């Protein structure tokens, strides 16, 4: 066997293979840098916060199905409930990978009491004449906030070390965008008088203020 065709390195200095050297990121060229804003522990905490939100969104939408009179809203929420549950499930599966334990009972965690109160407030509209308030809190405020935070997280976390979280959030964000678009279309249709538009504006303001006061899903905004 000639040196030019050596396929595997030998034990001697002159017994190297002939393959050209590249770094792991040369082909294609990878401009990502190591090191991100979040370490393993803080990433796990953020994932627990995200999972908490998706779990509660799933539950509150489930509860609302019976008290929403508009048929297309009932049926439209069905798929969003499932996709929200899948997002919570995927986020939960990431936690053991971040040394955050395997106990699903502790997998969800609000950033602080203010955020937990906000979630209960978003879930609170109950009677059939409050579809606007139900949907506004979730689709006009909370979901757009999640999209913003997920985008920041994806951008600022370690692009190589934390790539699995980025993948999860990328998928969740794509679906959240679809949900927000659906919610906007439904709300635009439901709010066709000045009074109804004012109800939407008021609810949006009320929930946004609470969200701002508690620092958002991770408590750091």
């Amino acid at each position, binding site marked *: 066997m000639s040196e030019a065709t050596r396929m595997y390195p030998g034990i001697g200095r002159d017994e190297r293979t002939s393959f050209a050297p590249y770094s792991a990121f040369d082909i294609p060229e990878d401009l990502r840098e190591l090191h991100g804003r979040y370490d393993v522990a803080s990433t796990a905490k953020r994932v627990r916060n995200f999972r908490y939100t998706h779990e509660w969104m799933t539950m509150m939408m489930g509860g*609302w199905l019976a*008290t929403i009179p508009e048929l297309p809203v009932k049926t439209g929420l069905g*798929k969003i*409930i499932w996709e929200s549950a899948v997002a919570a499930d995927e986020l939960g599966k990431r936690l053991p990978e971040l040394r955050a334990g395997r106990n699903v009972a502790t997998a969800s965690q609000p950033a602080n009491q203010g955020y937990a109160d906000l979630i209960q407030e978003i879930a609170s509209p109950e009677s059939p004449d409050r579809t606007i308030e139900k949907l506004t809190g979730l689709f006009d405020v909370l979901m757009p906030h999640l999209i913003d935070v997920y985008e920041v997280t994806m951008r600022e976390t370690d692009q190589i070390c934390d790539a699995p979280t980025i993948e999860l959030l990328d998928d969740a964000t794509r679906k959240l965008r679809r949900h927000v678009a659906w919610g906007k279309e439904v709300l635009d249709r439901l709010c066709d008088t000045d009074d109804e538009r004012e109800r939407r504006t008021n609810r949006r303001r009320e929930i946004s203020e609470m969200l701002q006061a508690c620092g958002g899903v991770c408590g750091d905004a």
Partner: protein
Amino acid sequence: MKRFIQHQELARDSRFIRQDNTLSTAISELPDDVDTVVEVFEAFDPMIEKATRGTSAEPLYEEYGPSFALVALNDPLKPTDKAVKTRLMMRMHGIFVGELQALEGAGRSLWDFPDAPWEFKMNMARQCWDEARHVQIFEKLLDHVGAKPGMYPESTFLFECACSDDPAMRVAGVNRGLEGLACDVFRDMIRYAEEVGDEKMKQAIDFVLADELTHVRFGSEWVREFTKGDPDHYERAQEFRRRVDKQFSFGGSRSDRDDAAIPIATEVRREAGFTDQELEELSMLSAGGPSRETVKAAARILRERHKAKRAGDGASA
């Protein structure tokens, strides 16, 4: 948002009218006796009349009196029957509102039991999506057979019977009682669609039936899980399911009897996880109630009395 709601709180748009559920309860307990059937339906006559006002059932009420629902419910769906279109529309509407209540039941299971295991919530979330699709499918099928949402009164009997405050009983009622009934009804609808050569209806309902099997399996697994290590609790959940099954047999309309409008889909149920013992129990407890001959005789009397009453009303007016 509170935990646990009553069936009266199910939200509907302005197309829908409710039917009082006490009638459905009474039907599920009727004996095989013409006089009793007549007596019960006469007692419920004002309630039945009220529920039909402004719906497509109003002309049926005017023609047949209070027994119209009983006749529509107790006769099998036959392509040769001259009233088949009306029966088909009524049954399709009943399925549509049943799917709506199954959607609401699955959704409430997510909210009512916040401490339930995550896997349970995943199953219920999946069921929400499935039931939402079923509502959409049956809205399309309503249109396919010339019907529309709200054209008949809605009984919220299914939600009322199945939605217990205990999670084991909730899944026994919704996932095994209600979804089991759905398996029987859909098997019969597929039989009807095959007889009339309606491929659209057959294929759509076959997909729905496949989903329902999955929901029954969820129920079988979660009844066991919620009652693990507690045989008394398991037995109470089984007893609750038997009671729901008895109520959902509508006086033998859904049973193994030769004259049943909806036969029990034994093979489908077995595939969904019902045991032979449970199927035997279901066969026995659903067999009671008036025979078709009794129903027909009672319906004849009720119709004659209704016509006489209307003639009297006309004469005195």
